[in-house]
């Protein structure tokens, strides 16, 4: 180790002396020579080399007669000696960088960043190099490996090193490299090893490579499984949010509200409006705090108006209600189109919710989805408390179970209907707010969720939250598992057919309220 460090110090002392010839080649040589010079500078790995390459990439490296200058605005530095010039010479000429050279430069700069003193720069550099390291970078990778102190960066460096040695090294280093690669988690390494297996003749090496490959595949498979489970829960939570409000209104009034999807859409557009206001006020990152209650209130008010003006007059005629709410949905879609335009609008994630957390290499769980899962659980808890711990909830449950009897004991069923419809619509608004974070917000947003939310309600049966929860999660899992196996469209078709068959067996859903009436 000490020897290495001494070597590096020694190299940097000699930097200018060595650089002079190389820089000359870089500035005045043919294309091949230029590429060689870039490689030489990378191998040197000094800060000066990095500066020169950066200048070349930025078009700041100029020639003036025999001299090579780094020109930054009004100041010029001689690239060979490091001498500062008093003023920028008149006869300076740009060094032409062709595409080949530019490509080489990109990799070279990334490689030089490996030895940067800034940890973040090193991190981003190894990430870049994981995908496209060149054999010429081997010396600098070795050097970086020797000095690296951060464990994470070191692990990634080892991957890069192994990948490079695999192509270049002798038998012993190749063996070491193959074994090292076995601890990787990235699909790129898998492809690399597969390529190695095809080319390598040595049996020992091949069997080692196979072992490593198996280890990686095992890890990748776990990553995939974890990914499927996560997306299933994510889809389930979205379905739950979309269907929860529908389950309440349907359970209560036996009315399928076809405009439910549009209430979701209104929630999403409310979020959009709040976002724009907050951006204007410069509080963009906090807009969701206001958007959540706003979306709830707007959708709830729209829902209550609908209940008072249309749905109330159609009690006992569920099929007509279905048609009239469909009409409402058409009007709402067109109204949104008229106000906001037919194109999708941009709703952006606040900084806190963008990006993701990487649990395994290659498995990134987006924050937005994690937050939505949490949000769905939160809404579920609120609804549960509201229905089971409050007076309104008691009345709602009473009316759901037996409307006439509830009316007889003095519950004002009409008022309960309005409030419950408002509640269901408000939850749709919350769903819209959540969806705006991960899906396109456009006039047709609701249409794409309406069939799914019906399926959840129909499958889960009415009257109990548990049914809706199980149905939503079940459908989420069924959809995603089948999707991994047969593709998205066939998965969807299979799920729909499953529901059709399921309804034949249990026409009232999974968790029907038990009764003895003939007509139920």
């Amino acid at each position: 180790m000490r020897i290495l460090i001494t070597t590096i110090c020694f190299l940097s002392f000699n930097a200018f002396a060595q650089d002079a010839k190389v820089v000359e080649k870089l500035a005045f040589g043919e294309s091949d020579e230029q590429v060689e010079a870039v490689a030489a500078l990378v191998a040197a790995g000094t800060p000066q080399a990095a500066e020169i390459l950066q200048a070349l990439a930025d078009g700041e490296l100029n020639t003036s007669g025999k001299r090579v200058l780094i020109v930054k605005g009004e100041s010029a530095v001689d690239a060979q000696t490091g001498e500062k010039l008093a003023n920028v010479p008149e006869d300076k000429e740009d060094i032409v960088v062709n595409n080949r050279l530019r490509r080489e430069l990109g990799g070279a700069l990334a490689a030089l960043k490996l030895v940067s003193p800034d940890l973040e720069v090193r991190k981003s550099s190894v990430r870049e190099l994981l995908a496209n390291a060149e054999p010429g970078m081997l010396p600098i990778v070795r050097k970086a490996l020797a000095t690296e102190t951060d464990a994470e960066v070191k692990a990634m460096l080892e991957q890069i090193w192994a990948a490079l040695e695999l192509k270049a090294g002798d038998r012993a280093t190749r063996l070491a490299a193959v074994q090292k690669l076995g601890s990787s988690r990235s699909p790129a390494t898998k492809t690399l090893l597969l390529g190695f297996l095809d080319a390598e003749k040595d049996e020992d090496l091949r069997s080692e490579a196979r072992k490593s490959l198996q280890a990686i595949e095992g890890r990748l498979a776990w990553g995939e499984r974890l990914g499927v489970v996560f997306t299933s829960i994510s889809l389930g939570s979205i379905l739950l949010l979309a269907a929860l409000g529908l389950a309440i209104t349907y359970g209560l009034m036996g009315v399928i509200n076809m405009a439910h999807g549009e209430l979701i859409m209104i929630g999403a557009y409310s979020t959009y409006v709040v976002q724009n206001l907050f951006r204007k006020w410069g509080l963009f990152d906090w807009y969701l705090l206001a958007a959540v209650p706003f979306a709830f209130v707007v959708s709830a008010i729209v829902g209550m108006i609908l209940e008072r003006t249309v749905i109330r007059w159609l009690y006992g005629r569920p099929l007509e209600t279905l048609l009239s709410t469909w009409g409402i949905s058409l009007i709402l879609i067109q109204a949104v189109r008229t106000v906001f335009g037919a194109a999708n609008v941009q709703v952006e994630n606040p900084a806190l919710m963008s990006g993701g957390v990487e649990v395994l290499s290659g498995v990134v769980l987006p924050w937005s989805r994690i937050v939505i899962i949490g949000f769905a659980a939160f809404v579920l808890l609120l609804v549960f408390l509201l229905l089971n711990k409050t007076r309104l909830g008691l009345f709602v449950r009473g009316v759901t179970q037996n409307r006439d009897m509830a009316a007889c004991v003095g519950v004002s069923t009409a008022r309960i209907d309005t409030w419950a419809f408002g509640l269901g619509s408000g939850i749709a608004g919350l769903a819209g707010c959540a969806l705006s974070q991960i899906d396109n917000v456009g006039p047709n947003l609701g249409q794409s969720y309406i069939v799914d939310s019906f399926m959840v309600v129909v499958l889960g049966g009415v009257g109990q939250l548990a049914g809706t929860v199980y149905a939503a999660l079940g459908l989420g899992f069924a959809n995603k598992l089948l999707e991994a196996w047969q593709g998205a469209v066939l998965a969807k078709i299979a799920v729909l057919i499953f529901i059709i068959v399921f309804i034949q067996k249990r026409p009232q859903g999974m968790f029907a309220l038990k009764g003895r009436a003939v007509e139920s």
Partner: protein
Amino acid sequence: MNPRLSRLYGVRGWTILAAFSLLVLVVLPLLHPQHVSTYWVTLLGKIMCYAIVAVAMDLIWGYAGILSLGHGLFFALGGYAFGMYLMRQIGSDGQYRQPMPDFMVFLDWKEFPWHWWNSDSFWWAATLVIVVPGLLAYVFGYFAFRSRVKGVYFSIITQALTFAAMLAFFRNAMGFGGNNGFTDFRRILDIPIATPQARMTLCAITAATLIGTLLLGRWLVTSKFGRVLAAIRDAEARVMFCGYDTMHYKLFVWTLSAILCGIAGALYVPQVGIINPSEMSPANSIEIAIWVAVGGRGTLAGAALGAGLVNGAKSFFTQVFPEYWLFFLGAIFIVVTLFLPQGVLGLIDRFKARS
């Protein structure tokens, strides 16, 4: 008047029907194409196809109380079944000048999938038009009615059915042309279809089918069978306790309705010149229900009238104020369900009763 005839319609009804037949089958061919352009003939033909669907829908919704939100599926299946034949009739005149339909050439298929067997035969296509929707409806209805799925649940699963079918037909692998479906038709029975005469003939055949459908439906609902159906609609449990097996009644009328839709679809495709999976979208099927509701449920003729009114309005709006069409359609849904439970025919009757 002959009692068999008077059972179906009164003097006024027969007169209207005769006038309609005269107009479409005699007067229109005389005026076409000099005084009435082919555009109007095609539009009329299209709307009459919709009217057949509306009558079929009225049979199950108006008389048996079953609201299907999946009738667009049967309509589209009939259309696809006949479309296959029309695709074969293109012969080698497609864009690629190959005997296979263009989309198959595009997908680099060398031979026809199994379900295209015998698709170059007109009579086989005509058989499929009836058998495919009928069989699907029979199987689906058998299971649904046996488990006594009804009301909103039934509506929702029919919607799921048509949605699933739409997704399936969007797939190229289904062998039905994927997104684009079938189009670019040239001939039926080796006769070119783009000529005014062919258009007029198709329109006349559609009119005859519509009249036939109306009479068949009327005959059915005025028979004892129709009375049992209405009883099932109003109080199914009581009918069951009286000893009727309601399932078979519902199943028969449900299957018949699907077959009629299939025939309408087969007539629709050559006139409109395209069939694609969007015909199966749930929104289309719901629109069928509103045609019936606008005209007046449980009247058959009203359903046909409603289809004409709504689609006439649609043609007008989408040309003149395209952005207001959805407002108007939505308003129809609400106004009809809230204020016109008997539809337009009911409104006319109410005015008469007052005067």
